[in-house]
């Protein structure tokens, strides 16, 4: 069965509510929609930040997200998936990333949304730069994000491919 899948990398803001609505409009088989929105915080630890700038690898970012969406749809009985990731300069309070998953029951929708976000953090080619106190610095990858992504891998499976 082909389900509606949307993957977009864009500079512009997105409308999370409208994207979620698109997955349920005109159908009655969807019983659960999970919408995750990642938002730019105004501080990192105790340091206030002015903005984030996101760099990405055009072409690979879409391809890598599509691979993980395909993996999610093979693991869970999903009825629709939308992933939108922004790039460019993003101010505190603005949205960065959206993952919407639709299914007939909540378990699959919750699990797939979490799976997609764990892999977006560690495998999608995006890099965040923080602007704070007039200086720019690259955000360092967190070991906790790798651990979160690894828990989805079956034992013995190569985490890199």
């Amino acid at each position, binding site marked *: 069965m082909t389900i509606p899948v949307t993957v977009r990398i864009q500079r512009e803001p997105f409308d999370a509510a409208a994207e979620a609505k698109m997955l349920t409009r005109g159908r009655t088989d969807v019983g659960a929609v999970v919408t995750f929105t*990642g938002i730019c915080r105004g501080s990192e630890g105790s340091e206030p930040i002015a903005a984030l700038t*996101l*760099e*990405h*690898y055009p*072409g*690979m*970012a879409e*391809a*890598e997200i599509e691979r993980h969406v395909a993996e999610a749809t093979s693991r869970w009985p999903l009825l629709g998936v939308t992933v939108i*990731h922004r790039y460019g300069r993003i101010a505190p309070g603005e949205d*960065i*990333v959206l993952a919407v998953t639709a299914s007939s029951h909540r378990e699959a929708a919750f699990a797939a949304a979490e799976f997609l*976000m764990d892999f*977006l*953090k*560690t*495998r*999608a*080619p*995006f*890099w*965040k*730069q923080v602007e704070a106190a007039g200086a720019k610095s*690259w*955000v*360092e*990858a967190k070991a906790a*994000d790798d651990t979160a992504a690894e828990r989805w891998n079956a034992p013995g499976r190569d985490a*890199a*491919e």
Partner: protein
Amino acid sequence: MKLKIRYFAWVRERVGVPEEDVEVPASVRTVGELAAWLATRGEEYAHAFENPKVIRAAIDRTHVRPDAALGSASEIAFFPPMTGG
């Protein structure tokens, strides 16, 4: 062998260019060997590739490990661990 090499985030900043076409010696067979060879091309490259363990790579827009063969690749990318989402 002529390859397009792309750099992202602080690897790009250190090298000084976002991408370049490079004539790579035939003796360079893997992604890890390519990174080591690039590191010999000048101070900027040495700085970018000074800690190979933190450099990630992709061949034709797919993640690969350092021992991946270049084979018939046309585009190789080097970048730090990803921090999206």
